[in-house]
């Protein structure tokens, strides 16, 4: 009789013993049991009738799943550059000292652990942290103390003051998308136009994907619609992992009607009857609210069968949670994750539109793109296309953070200049702006007359602002750490290249870099761009390359005068031997060559 933990067993049964739910099962098991033990792995594997290694490969891929006890309270501090600029490290260290912890270790009583994590989508209200995946933004010393007290009192998370978990929308500027739409209005508009009519309007609108790739949504929908077979899927990409991006968080929180009805409209136009919202693990605080919205829609005929009375218009939506993995924002990786596997990007071709989720045609669209569908069906594609520019129609949500007076979400028509945006958000004395997240571009003031648009400066919407006192080298280094942490590991150039890039940046940061390192960086960056398997590797070197090009002095002042410096800190390499022999004479030290 194979071992079966009853709690875990119940979770697996809840998911109908379906292996595509491995990730969901492990998430829930960890929530109840605080970690994924070997016994949990055995139970899940035997009940799902899959090899235990299949479960282990999921367990070890996602950042938020733990194969060792990490305490009842598992704390993760966001460590994006904007969190650093807001002072996250001092707060982190304060928490470590109050809880008597070392980074990444569990307290001796097994109660709590604390570590750093990638951007959590709270750049407008950082520094932020996650407590068992629940977001706590706007951290201050006082908040840290409050949290430590709650932990020491062993208060259950659902009894912590709600104020700690309050996430602001910070909507600063609206145009058309960030206006409420009455439930059902968009669905009715789509039905009135019919399936082909709906598709035609989306094509006419020329709307392009808002997640960064900018692919024409109408073309994507049509491709899926025309693909052979009866079954199709719609996936709403709510992974929003690109550092600096948080606009989808706002849409999901306050404009869920647009997002969810947009998904149904996509289903209507393509013939798909099932949709998934892939919600990043860091947005767990949105899960219950979104689920209630979905249940509500089902209850009043906006989801389910014969939606709004239209026979044949069937669509339903399921939420799938992520568990910490930036690469899962890549379309094919997301589909792998939905299938209960590690989020490793697939080989393309074939494209997802032909072979996607469970081998069926799948449309993966960003939250904002789907929301636009509710505008397009109501006003028509031609009217939509009048906004923005000829090649970038409609409006764009920008997530603005960093050194500015009013961080938050701003909606502009495409074509707005960067300078205008900086003025509106109260950014003064700007040294540089990182647009498009860690994988985007770094622009300097002489480029601020450029426009946000696919044909000029394309972006999924992240705008991180750095004032004149910021160290752009450290910005690039923060991103180098990010990519090394998030590489999926499938292909040689990215798996090894991101590590080499990070190590070189660290070497320079420690003052042990020489001109040699600058040349090596350029080589590795170019190499990853040419040979990587997916966009992560291709863009992993962008920030370092831009920083080298435009902020060379930030590197130069850290470099040795010589052309070469040893790979390691030789003094540090002698530390162990000095200790064991208790020697401190001249020969027990090695100077860096002058």
């Amino acid at each position: 009789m194979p071992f079966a933990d009853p709690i875990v067993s119940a979770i697996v049964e809840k998911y109908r013993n379906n292996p595509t739910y491995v990730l969901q099962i492990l998430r829930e098991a960890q929530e109840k049991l605080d970690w994924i033990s070997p016994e949990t792995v055995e139970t899940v594997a035997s009940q799902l009738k899959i090899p235990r290694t299949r479960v282990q490969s999921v367990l070890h891929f996602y950042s938020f799943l733990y194969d060792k006890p990490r305490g009842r309270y598992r704390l993760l501090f966001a460590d994006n550059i904007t969190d650093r600029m807001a002072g996250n490290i001092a707060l982190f260290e304060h928490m470590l000292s109050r809880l008597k912890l070392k980074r990444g270790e569990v307290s001796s009583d097994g109660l709590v652990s604390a570590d750093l994590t990638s951007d959590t989508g709270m750049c407008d209200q950082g520094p932020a942290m996650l407590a068992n995946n629940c977001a706590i933004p706007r951290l201050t010393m006082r908040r840290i103390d409050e949290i430590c007290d709650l932990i020491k009192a062993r208060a259950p998370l659902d009894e912590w003051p709600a104020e700690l978990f309050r996430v602001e929308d910070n909507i600063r500027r609206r145009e058309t998308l960030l206006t409420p739409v009455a439930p059902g209005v968009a669905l009715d508009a789509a039905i009135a136009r019919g399936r082909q009519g709906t598709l035609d309007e989306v094509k006419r609108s020329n709307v392009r994907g808002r997640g960064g790739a900018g692919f024409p949504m109408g073309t994507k929908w049509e491709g899926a619609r025309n693909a052979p077979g009866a079954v199709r899927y719609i996936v709403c990409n709510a992974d929003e992992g690109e550092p600096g991006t948080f606009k989808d968080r706002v849409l999901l929180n306050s404009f869920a009607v647009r997002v969810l009805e947009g998904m149904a409209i996509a289903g209507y136009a393509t013939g798909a009857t099932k949709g998934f919202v892939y919600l990043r693990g860091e947005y767990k605080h949105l899960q219950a609210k979104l689920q209630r919205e979905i249940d509500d829609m089902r209850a009043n005929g906006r989801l389910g069968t014969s939606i709004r009375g239209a026979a044949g218009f069937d669509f339903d939506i399921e939420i799938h949670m992520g568990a910490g993995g930036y690469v899962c924002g890549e379309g094919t990786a997301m589909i792998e994750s939905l299938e209960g596997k590690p989020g490793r990007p697939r080989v393309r071709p074939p494209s997802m539109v032909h072979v996607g989720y469970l081998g069926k045609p799948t449309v993966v669209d960003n939250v904002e793109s789907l929301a636009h569908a509710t505008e397009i069906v109501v006003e028509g594609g031609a009217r939509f296309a009048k906004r923005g520019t000829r090649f970038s129609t409609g409006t764009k949500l920008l997530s603005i953070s960093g050194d500015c007076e009013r961080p938050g979400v701003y909606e502009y028509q495409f074509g707005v200049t960067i300078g205008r945006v900086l003025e509106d958000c109260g950014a003064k004395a700007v040294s540089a702006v990182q647009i498009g997240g860690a994988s985007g571009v770094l622009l300097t003031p002489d480029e601020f007359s450029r426009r946000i648009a696919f044909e000029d400066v394309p972006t999924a919407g992240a705008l991180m602002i750095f004032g004149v006192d910021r160290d752009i080298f450290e910005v690039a280094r923060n991103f180098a750490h990010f990519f090394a942490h998030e590489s999926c590991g499938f292909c040689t150039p990215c798996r090894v290249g991101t590590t080499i890039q990070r190590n070189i940046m660290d070497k320079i940061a420690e003052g042990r870099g020489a001109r040699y390192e600058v040349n090596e960086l350029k080589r590795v960056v170019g190499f990853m761009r040419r040979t990587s398997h997916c966009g992560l590797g291709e863009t992993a070197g962008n920030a370092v390359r831009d920083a080298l090009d435009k902020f060379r002095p930030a590197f130069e002042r850290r470099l040795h005068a010589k052309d070469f410096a040893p790979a390691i800190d030789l003094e540090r390499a002698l530390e162990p031997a000095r200790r064991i022999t208790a020697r401190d004479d001249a020969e027990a030290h090695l100077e860096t060559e002058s």
Partner: protein
Amino acid sequence: MAETTFTIDEIPIPFTPGQTILEATKAAGIYIPHLCYHPEFKAHGGCKMCTVLVNGKPQTACTHKAAAGQEVEVDTPELNAMRRTLVQMLFIEGNHFCPSCEKSGECQLQALAYEYEMLTPHFVELYPHRNVDASHPDVLIEFNRCVLCELCVRASRDIDHKDVFAIAGRGRDAKLIVNSPTGKLGDSALAVTDRAVQVCPVGAIIVKRVGFETPIGERTYDKNPISAEADSCEVPEAR
């Protein structure tokens, strides 16, 4: 006639629809380097050794389908330098100590390094802490030499139907794991006769009590470079 050819370095190569660039070039006797490819298994596309330029854009030849009129570049200085860099990255990522390795002279990673004249691994050695699993009576795994090609994973799953191997972990933490209650090979269903034992292109999966049988000078890649091997993905049989 012109409809069913594409060009490799300006030489027209015939292909049958559905073939990948690698398959078509192999059939035509032209060498494109590869490490994680094997004709018996579904193409992986992870090692990136078979990267070629297809109409100017880098693609992996093992996964990219041949198409009429495609212009493929294989033997260019940029691509050869790229291949050498890939091999260097693989060398520094693990602990590849050739002098004491049973696979030396029969190893595809080493042979590719010779092919692309790698004189030094160049990058800073990462010296990861990895172990040997010698728990199985007949087969040992030297994790220091694993290049994550997943040939053993595919073979065990698709040919042996045992699912002994999988890859777990993300990024540089990615590693080969064994399907057994203890994680040890000795507690798994692996048998020395499994296809998974034979397909390892490097010295990671080694048959015990067989080693250094062939004298230096008479091993497969002593005699010929990997590019000259008639069937260069026929992994030298584990004995």
